[in-house]
């Protein structure tokens, strides 16, 4: 598939970025036809555990994990190149949920013994945590309210935990006497039940019901927990955005390729100006998204304030969510009837975009937060 992005024309990659990107390109080339993606749809855990193991072998699970815990300790300037490829290949693995959101929460907490035990296990792919923080639809509030902890017991309901079926442990936020705290809870803990919602992309969200669940290890107290959660979620927004960038980029590549091949009225339909202009508008959205992803990755690898990080996370998520939906929906239209079949891969890109665009705040939610933070 020909790369039509401006990366090769205008972006200067470091040697390290090129190496990492090349390995990610090679990785997704193994399943160019998306057979594994299709096979893992609609069956628990909603992803391919073997694919996750292979990714861990490449060291990606430990991308953000400091070297002291056996990770590679790189940042988003490098990681975004992997995430873009994961989006392009619709790779069926909970990378962002595990390797970014949950990993970041654990890295930033101050329970050293848990970190020493669990982070190296995460890095080698032997342990998968998931972050259970959300209590209301459409909310970005990291302040725990409905899920409470008292007398060593957690009670309440956590929503929208992606790929919960494959998680070994949950990092759970709960309201204690002094505010939000973070705990590690095993999936088999007594009193914890999980309901699953079928996602449109074929994966699952878990709804976690806590009924007098005994607390496991405490990861962070009320002095730090909300800051930890905010950073984990904001980095998650950037990671999702980079993955969405990959989704939209490949969808556009597939569509432009189709426009070049498909003949009607004795001409390739890509020669019609109406379709050319439509395609260019999609292309512009994808490149604006890329600009913002690159800018945000650089910002996150510096030392942004919590507010700067939040503003930038909302900026990038708002753009990439809207752009990915616009591009993937238009891609269905430009493919015509075949685009509406499950057999054609283009529809898988729309469904992935629909999941990722709405997870951790959709575009409207992020514009609202952006306005609150900046107006």
């Amino acid at each position: 598939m020909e790369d039509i992005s401006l990366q090769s024309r205008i972006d200067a990659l470091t040697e390290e970025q090129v190496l990492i990107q090349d390995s990610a390109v090679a990785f997704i080339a193994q399943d160019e036809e998306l057979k594994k993606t299709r096979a893992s749809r609609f069956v628990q855990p909603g992803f391919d555990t073997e694919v996750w193991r292979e990714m861990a072998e490449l060291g990606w699970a430990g991308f953000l994990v400091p070297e002291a815990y056996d990770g590679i300790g790189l940042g988003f300037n490098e990681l975004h190149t992997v995430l873009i490829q994961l989006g392009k290949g619709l790779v069926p693995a909970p990378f962002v949920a595990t390797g970014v959101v949950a990993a970041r929460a654990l890295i930033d907490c101050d329970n050293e013994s848990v970190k020493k035990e669990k982070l190296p296990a995460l890095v080698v792919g032997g342990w998968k945590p998931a972050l259970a923080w959300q209590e209301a639809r459409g909310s970005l509030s990291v302040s725990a309210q409905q899920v409470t902890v008292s007398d060593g017991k957690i009670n309440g309901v956590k929503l929208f935990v992606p790929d919960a079926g494959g998680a070994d442990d949950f990092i759970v936020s709960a309201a204690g006497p002094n505010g939000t705290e973070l705990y590690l809870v095993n999936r088999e803990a007594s009193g914890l039940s999980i309901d699953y919602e079928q996602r449109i992309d074929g994966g699952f969200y878990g709804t976690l019901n806590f009924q007098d669940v005994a607390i496991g290890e405490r990861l962070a107290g009320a002095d730090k927990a909300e800051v930890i959660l905010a950073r984990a979620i904001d980095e998650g927004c950037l990671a999702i955005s980079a993955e969405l960038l990959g989704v939209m980029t490949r969808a556009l590549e597939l569509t432009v390729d189709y426009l070049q091949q498909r003949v009607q009225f004795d001409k390739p339909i890509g020669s019609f100006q109406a379709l050319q202009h439509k395609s260019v508008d999609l292309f512009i959205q994808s490149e604006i998204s890329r600009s913002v992803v690159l800018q945000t990755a650089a910002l996150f690898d510096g030392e942004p304030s919590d507010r700067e990080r939040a503003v930038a996370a909302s900026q990038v998520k708002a753009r990439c969510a809207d752009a990915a939906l616009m591009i993937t929906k238009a891609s269905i239209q430009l493919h015509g009837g075949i685009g509406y079949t499950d057999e054609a891969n283009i529809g898988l890109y729309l469904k992935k975009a629909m999941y990722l665009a709405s997870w951790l705040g959709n575009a409207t939610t992020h514009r609202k937060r952006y306005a609150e933070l900046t107006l």
Partner: protein
Amino acid sequence: MTEQAHNEYNAMDDDAFRVMVHEWIVENYPQELRFKPYRMHWDEIGDWYLTLSKKGWLTPAWPAEYGGMGLDANKLLIFMDVCESYGVGRTPDMGITMVGPLLIQHGSQEQKDHYLPRILAGEYIWCQGYSEPGAGSDLASLQTSAVRDGDDYVVNGHKIWTTLAMDANMIFLLVRTNKEGKKQEGITFLLAPLDTPGITVRPIINLGMHDEFAEVFFDDVRIPVANVVGGENKGWTIAKALLGHERIFIGSPKFAILAMARLKSLAKTVGLFDDPIFVERYTRLQLDIDDLFATYKRFVEVLKRGGTIGPEVSMLKIWNTETQQRLTELMMEAAGENGGIQDGIATDDGLVRPAGEVIGSRPSTIYGGSNEVQRNILAKAVLRLPG
């Protein structure tokens, strides 16, 4: 000539350079000419042209050996940024941005020696004779003819959209010297004084009620063959090659950022920030501009690395100009009935004129290759869609 050895500019620390340019501009640029919403005529902005000329800062992008500042891409961007931020108006700058660079690249020694010092001194002020009534987006179909007669061409035809022709005393134009074969290969680039007998300039009033451009008529006008630049029938090639570094400035988000500030003042004045529907639309625009800025900086990095920008720069033009139009449209809506009056609406930060802004933002999606033509370019050159 300049007060300072030219290469010293590029050797300066970026911040020091910025401060130096800024301080001099604050001291010398007339306060009352800041942020003018229209293209100024020579009677308003001419003194500034001459002030820049005396300082040696008229032609920041020209090489030092031709009397320019010789700025590298990075310093040039800083220079332009300072000017835009302070609201410095454009001079009649066709000699600076078009003719000069073209002569430096393709002119004969005699042409360089004659024209360049006169551009620098403000003695020759230029206008551009490219478009014709029948040759707009399809410029190569131009029909103004030049027929060889001894040492002269005899030129007949009709040019249009000639910006500030009434302020100019020189014109550079594309003429047809060959009607056979490929239309791009029969075009020649000519220079002529505007007072040459047979040339008539007629101003055109635009929708902003301003005579910013004009028509220029050629009626048996004799132009010496010596005034050809780049050789007969080579005009198209050299005119196209001119699209260099300065194309980046069409993507500069400065104007949109300033217009957004006016929208903000307006919205505060009329109390619209309590309206969640307005806030959503406002934020969308703010993010369109923030993201434009991110994209602009990405292109600027290419120039700073010493690279060149190709046809992909069209996406900057499209996004920038269309974002500005959406912005002015929201301004007009925010102003209610005042959106339909000339004087607009008074705010704490001064008068905001939504109607004038809506009108004033129209031409940018038309000139310099309409946005539809830009989309054709991107479709073919970047997406490689079939012709």
